[in-house]
């Protein structure tokens, strides 16, 4: 691999990473470093923040400032980092459990405040780290270790939630579409304000096995079959049962720090 890319990896004996054979998280990690390289980000200027989970192990392999916080708390921690160091690109990566279950409130409020973060949600449809329990994105009717009678709960539409919360960009990609994934990561990082990227990823060890989809290869094929690129969609509505990839939503809104500074300045100047 090219040094321009390798320079973003911690190569002092941390690899091979701890993720399972065929797990999609490694693919996401790889496209993150390619995106860093394409964007020519200085290592010193990146801070990658995560909570707890398999997906949250990514920062440990990246050669920049990295912050492995508590389960669910990556976003408030990243908010602190961003406000302390506005010049850094602060990127949050975490699982569907980490960000959408225990961390959901933080996710939504950071979006509402429009904190200038890039939030990558690794959606593998279950809790990988703890062994395949149900998550907010486990499709209704799927199996998980804590839904042995099939999940009776409806799964989240991360897109709808993100949009309603006030994210300025929502994009989706999958681990089967690495080049697309890379371009979505770049888009999300470049976007000022709270941007969300959902990456559909395979957890062959649990979700794939428990639901008899199969190993990494089978799961990628499964993604491949179900994916539709938004640019090829004719209608306004998203087709049922498909994974629509691309930028599903984008808007402009003032980022928090800017709003904060403006508010303070306009009042404080008035006082003086």
């Amino acid at each position, binding site marked *: *691999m090219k040094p321009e890319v*390798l*320079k973003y*990896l*911690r*190569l*002092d004996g941390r*690899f*091979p*990473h701890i*993720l*399972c*054979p*065929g*797990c*999609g*998280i*490694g*693919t996401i*990690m*790889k496209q993150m470093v390619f995106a860093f390289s394409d964007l020519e980000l200085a290592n010193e200027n990146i801070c990658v923040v995560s909570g707890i989970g398999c997906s949250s192990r990514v920062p440990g392999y990246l*050669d920049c400032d990295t912050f492995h916080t508590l389960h669910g708390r990556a976003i408030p921690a990243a908010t602190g980092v961003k406000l302390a160091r506005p010049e850094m690109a602060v990127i949050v990566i975490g699982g569907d459990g980490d960000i959408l279950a225990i961390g959901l409130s933080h996710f939504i409020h950071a979006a509402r405040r429009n904190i200038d973060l890039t939030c990558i949600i690794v959606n593998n449809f279950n809790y990988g780290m703890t062994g395949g329990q149900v998550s907010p994105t486990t499709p209704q009717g799927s199996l998980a270790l804590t839904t042995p009678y099939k999940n009776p709960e409806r799964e989240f539409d991360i897109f709808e939630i993100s949009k309603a919360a006030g994210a300025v960009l929502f994009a989706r990609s999958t*681990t*089967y579409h*690495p*080049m697309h994934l890379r371009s979505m990561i770049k888009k999300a990082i470049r976007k000022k304000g709270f941007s969300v990227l959902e990456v559909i990823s395979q957890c*062959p060890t649990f979700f794939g096995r428990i639901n008899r989809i199969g*190993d*990494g*290869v089978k799961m*990628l094929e499964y993604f491949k079959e179900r994916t539709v690129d938004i640019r090829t969609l004719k209608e306004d509505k998203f087709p049922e049962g498909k994974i629509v990839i691309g930028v599903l939503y984008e808007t402009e809104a003032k980022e928090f720090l800017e709003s904060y500074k403006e508010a303070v300045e306009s009042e404080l100047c008035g006082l003086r």
Partner: protein
Amino acid sequence: MKKSFPKEVVQNTKRGHKIFIVKEFCKSCGICINFCPTQTLGFGEDLKVTVIRPDSCIGCLLCELLCPDFAISVEKAKKV
């Protein structure tokens, strides 16, 4: 931090593309093998990935892009 990427096994292919494999990183998931459009790759004796048909590689990079483990990469032949 000292940077060092583990030794890569280099395999040249007929069309000039070079395939680099880091055996220690390969977890034998089969993704590269399965999605290689030209069946260039396969498992070796040690159950790690290896080039089995050096003739066919077209340098499409898919294996590199899809490998979750930084275990395979491809240097495309320079166009002359």
